[in-house]
C-alpha cells in the first residue's frame, strides 16, 4: 500500500499560511450539522476534467449516479469526451461479501477494450475501501498489461472533506503521472496551471492571452488537460495555482522534487486577472516578457473599460450584499467593485481566516463582514438600501420580501465569469437581474390578502 498518501501529512501542510493555528477547515465534520462534499467529490473535481482518461468509480451507485455530468468542464480534446461519461462498478451485495476485485479487473478490461483511453483513474469509495479491495495491486497489474497509467485514487468519502479529496487527487497525479514522460520540447516560459478546471470554459478566457505572450501551458491539473502533458509537468518552469488552496501540497512537493517554484492567483475580475498575468511574467523573470505583459494588460484593461462603460453607468451608485462562502467572499466582491458596485456587506461565516482578511481588505473599513448572514442580511438590506442580493437559493425569499433584485451565486453556471471577458458576462447577467421586474411582481400580495 505504498502508494497510499498519508492523510495526516496532507492535513499538516507546511505551505498553508494558517498552519500555525488550529485548523478549523481540516477538522472532522459534525454529525447532523455538516455541509459540503466528501473526499471522493474533491478527487473527482480535481481529476475528472481529464477528458482523455476514463474515470472508473469503484463503489455503489450513489457515488457516481448523483455526480456524473454535473460539471461543465470544457475540453478541446478531439476524441470522445470521457469527462462527460460515467463508469462505475456499481458494487452489489455479492461484491461486498466476496470482494469487488474481480469485477474491478473486468471493468478496467472492458473500458480498455471499448474506449481505449490515455489513462484510467480508479476511485476507491467508502464501501470498497472498507471491504479492503486492493485497488493498488489491480491498477499496477492493469498498467503493466495495457502499458498506460492506471491510477488508483485513494479518496474514499469517509477520509474527509472535499478539500482533502482534491489534495488526494493531486497526490495521485503526482505519484503516478508527473515525471513519467519527457516533453517533446521545452520553452523558457513553460507553466503548469494547477487547480484550473476550466468550468464553463473559464480558462479559455485567459489562455489566448498567455499564448499571445508566448507563455506555454505545458500541462494543467486538470482543465482541458491531457494525460501525456501532466506526465511531463516536471519540466515546467513555474506552477501557477489558480484559486485552489487544496493543491499547495502538490506544488510544494513539485518544488522539492523538481525545483519548480509556484505562485497562487485568481482570474476573477479585472484587477485579479491583470495581477495574475503580471505575476506569471514576473515569476518567469524575463524583462522583455514583463514589459510585453504590461502592455497587454494595459490594452486589455482599456478595451474592457470601453466595453464596460455602459454597464458602469448603469451600476453606478448601486449597492450589493453578498452572501457566499470560501474565496468567493472576496473574489466576487472584487469583481462587483470592478463593475462599479458598492459592496456593502459580504458573508464570512464559511470562510477561512485568510479569506476573511482578504474580504476586509476588499470591502474596506466601512464594509460589513457578516458572521451570521441568515439573520444579518435582511437587516443590512434595509439599513444600506441595497439594490441587489447575491446569495444561494435559500436567500431568495429575503430578496423578494425586500423587493430587491436577486442573483443566485451558487447556480450552476452556464457561462464563464472568468478573465476579462467573463466580467462582461457577469455585468450582463447582473444588469438583467436589476432590470427584471419579476422580483417586484412576485412580491405582490394576493387579492385575498389585501
Amino acid at each position, binding site marked *: 500500500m505504498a502508494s497510499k498518501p498519508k492523510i495526516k501529512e496532507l492535513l499538516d501542510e507546511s505551505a498553508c499560511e494558517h498552519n500555525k493555528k488550529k485548523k478549523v477547515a481540516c477538522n472532522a465534520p459534525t454529525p447532523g450539522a455538516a455541509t459540503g462534499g466528501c473526499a471522493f467529490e474533491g478527487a473527482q473535481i480535481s481529476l475528472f476534467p481529464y477528458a482523455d482518461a476514463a474515470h472508473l468509480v469503484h463503489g455503489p451507485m450513489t457515488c457516481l449516479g448523483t455526480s456524473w455530468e454535473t460539471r461543465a468542464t470544457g475540453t478541446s480534446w478531439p476524441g470522445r469526451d470521457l469527462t462527460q461519461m460515467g463508469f462505475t462498478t456499481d458494487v452489489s451485495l455479492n461484491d461486498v461479501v466476496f470482494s469487488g476485485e474481480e469485477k474491478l479487473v473486468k471493468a478496467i478490461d472492458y473500458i480498455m477494450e471499448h474506449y481505449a483511453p490515455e489513462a484510467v483513474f480508479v476511485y476507491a469509495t467508502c464501501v470498497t475501501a472498507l471491504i479492503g479491495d486492493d485497488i493498488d495491486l489491480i491498477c499496477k497489474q492493469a498498467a503493466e498489461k495495457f502499458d498506460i497509467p492506471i491510477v488508483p485514487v485513494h479518496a474514499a468519502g*469517509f477520509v474527509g472533506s472535499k478539500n482533502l479529496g482534491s489534495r488526494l487527487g493531486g497526490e495521485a497525479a503526482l505519484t503516478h503521472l508527473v515525471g513519467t514522460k519527457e516533453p517533446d520540447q521545452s520553452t523558457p516560459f513553460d507553466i503548469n496551471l494547477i487547480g484550473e478546471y476550466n468550468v464553463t470554459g473559464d480558462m479559455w478566457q485567459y489562455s489566448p492571452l498567455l499564448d499571445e505572450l508566448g507563455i506555454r501551458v505545458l500541462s494543467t491539473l486538470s482543465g482541458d488537460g491531457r494525460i501525456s502533458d501532466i506526465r511531463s509537468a516536471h519540466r515546467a518552469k513555474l506552477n501557477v495555482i489558480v484559486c485552489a488552496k487544496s493543491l499547495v501540497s502538490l506544488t510544494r512537493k513539485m518544488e522539492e522534487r523538481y525545483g519548480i517554484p509556484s505562485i497562487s492567483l485568481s482570474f476573477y475580475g479585472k484587477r485579479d486577472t491583470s495581477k495574475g498575468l503580471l505575476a506569471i511574467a514576473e515569476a518567469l523573470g524575463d524583462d522583455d516578457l514583463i514589459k510585453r505583459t504590461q502592455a497587454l494588460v494595459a490594452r486589455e484593461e482599456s478595451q474592457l473599460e470601453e466595453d464596460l462603460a455602459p454597464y458602469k453607468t448603469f451600476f453606478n451608485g448601486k449597492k450589493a450584499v453578498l452572501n457566499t462562502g470560501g474565496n468567493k467572499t472576496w473574489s466576487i466582491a472584487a469583481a462587483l467593485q470592478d463593475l462599479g458596485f458598492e459592496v456593502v456587506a459580504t458573508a464570512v461565516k464559511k470562510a477561512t481566516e485568510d479569506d476573511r482578511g482578504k474580504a476586509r481588505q476588499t470591502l474596506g473599513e466601512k464594509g460589513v463582514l457578516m458572521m451570521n448572514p441568515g439573520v444579518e442580511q435582511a437587516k443590512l438590506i434595509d439599513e444600506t438600501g441595497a439594490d441587489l442580493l447575491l446569495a444561494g437559493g435559500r436567500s431568495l425569499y429575503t430578496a423578494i420580501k425586500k423587493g430587491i433584485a436577486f442573483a443566485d451565486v451558487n447556480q450552476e453556471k452556464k457561462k464563464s465569469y472568468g478573465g476579462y471577458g467573463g466580467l462582461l458576462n457577469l455585468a450582463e447577467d447582473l444588469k438583467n437581474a436589476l432590470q427584471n421586474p419579476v422580483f417586484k411582481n412576485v412580491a405582490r400580495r394576493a387579492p385575498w390578502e389585501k
Partner: protein
Amino acid sequence: MGEVNHKKEKPLQVNPFKLSQPMGATLAFLGVDKCMPLMHGGQGCTSFTKVFFTRHFCEPIAIQTSAVTDAIAVLDGGDYSIVESVKNITKKVTPSLIGLHTTGLPETKGDDVRGVASQIAFPMVTVNTPDYEGGFESGWAKTCKALIEQLVETSEVVDDNTLVLLPHVSLQPIEVEKIKEFIEGFGFNVLAVPDLSSSLDGHLGEKQAALSSGGISVDEIRSLGEAGLVISVGDSMQGCAAALQNKSPEMRHHHFVHLNGLVATDRLVEVLLEETGLTRPPISVARWRQRLQDAMLDSHFSLGQNRFLVAAEPDHLAAICQSLHEAGGRVAIAISTVDSSQLEKIKADKVIVGDLEDAELAAAEYDVIVGNFHCEALAHRLHKGLVLRGFPNWEQVGNALKNDVLYEGGCYLLFEAANTASSRNEVKHV
C-alpha cells in the same frame, strides 16, 4: 410481449441512469411534513443527494448527514454519530420526524440503526437502504413501508370514505396531486404517503428549507389504519399496501401497475364506481376521457411512424411504454434501471436491465428517446428526438408540474412525444 432480459451482463455501468436506494429514501421522507431526512453515512452521499434534488426541483432540500469518518466507521456502531446527529439537528430545528436511512458504508459494517434509534427519545423512523442493493424505486418503497410499519396505529374499524394512495417514486408532485383530486372527485378523502404534492411542488413560501415544507403529517400517517381503502400505484408499492393491511385487516386493497394511459385510468374509474356505488364519474372525468381519445387519434400518425427507446425506473417504464403503445408508438427498446416484476408486462419489442451505453449501441433501432437528463448528450450525439422524463432533469425547469397520468396527463405526454417525433421528420429541402 417482446424479449425480456432480466440480468445485466457487463461488469460495470457505463453512463448509468440508475439511482441509489438512499436517494429514494431521502425523497420519500421529503414527502412527510416537517421531516428531517438523516442519511447515515459519509457526508458526500448527503451532499450529492442534496444537490441532485435541488437541481431537479429548483428548490432548497432539507437533509442532514451523520458524517461518518474513517475513524468513526471503524470504532463506532452508529451509536455516536446517530445520537450526535439527532442532538445537533434538534439544537437548531424541531422536526416532527427524523427519517434515518442508511447507505452502503454503515451497512457494510453492520450498524444496528433500529437499535440505536430506539434508545433516542425523539420521533424517528429508520430504514435500511444500502446503496449496493436495489435502487431508487426500492429505497422509496422501503421507506414508505417503514413509515407504515413504525408509525401507523392498528385499527379494527375502518372509514370507507377515506382512501390511502401509495404512489411510486417516479410520480412527480403534480401527478400525485392529480391522482388525489381524481379520486376525491368520487367523494373520498385521500391521503397519499409519501406525499410530494404539497412539499416539492415548487411553491413560494417563507421557507429556509430547514425542514420539509409540506407533505403528509406524522399524525395523519399514524391514523392511516382507519382508512377503508388503499390504492397502490406501481409494483414497487405492493409491499407497502400489505404492510398497511397488516395494521388494519378490514382495509381493502386495489393495485395498479401504473395509472398512465386510457386502459389503466378506465380501470381506476371502474374500481371507484364499484366502491362508491356511483353510476357515472364527475363530468370533468368524462370530458378528459374524450380529450384523451382525441389526443390518441391526433397523435397516432406521428407516434406510429416512429420507434421509441424508453429508459426509466421499472414502474415508470411500464407506465410510459403503455401510454405510447396505446396510441401506436412502438417501443423498440425499454431499458430498466433494475430488475422488477414489471419487466414481463412492459409493452416493448425488447426489455433489458441496463445503462445508456446499451442505448447508444442500439442506436439504429429507434428514433426518439424518452428518459432523464443523461439522455440529452446521447440524443444530441445520435440525432434523436428527446422527451425528458424521470430523475434527474437538470436541463429544464418545471419538472414538479409535468403531468403524464390519468386521462388528462395522458394527453400531454402523447402530444409532447408526437410533436418531438414529428419535428424530426420534417421534409428537408435539398
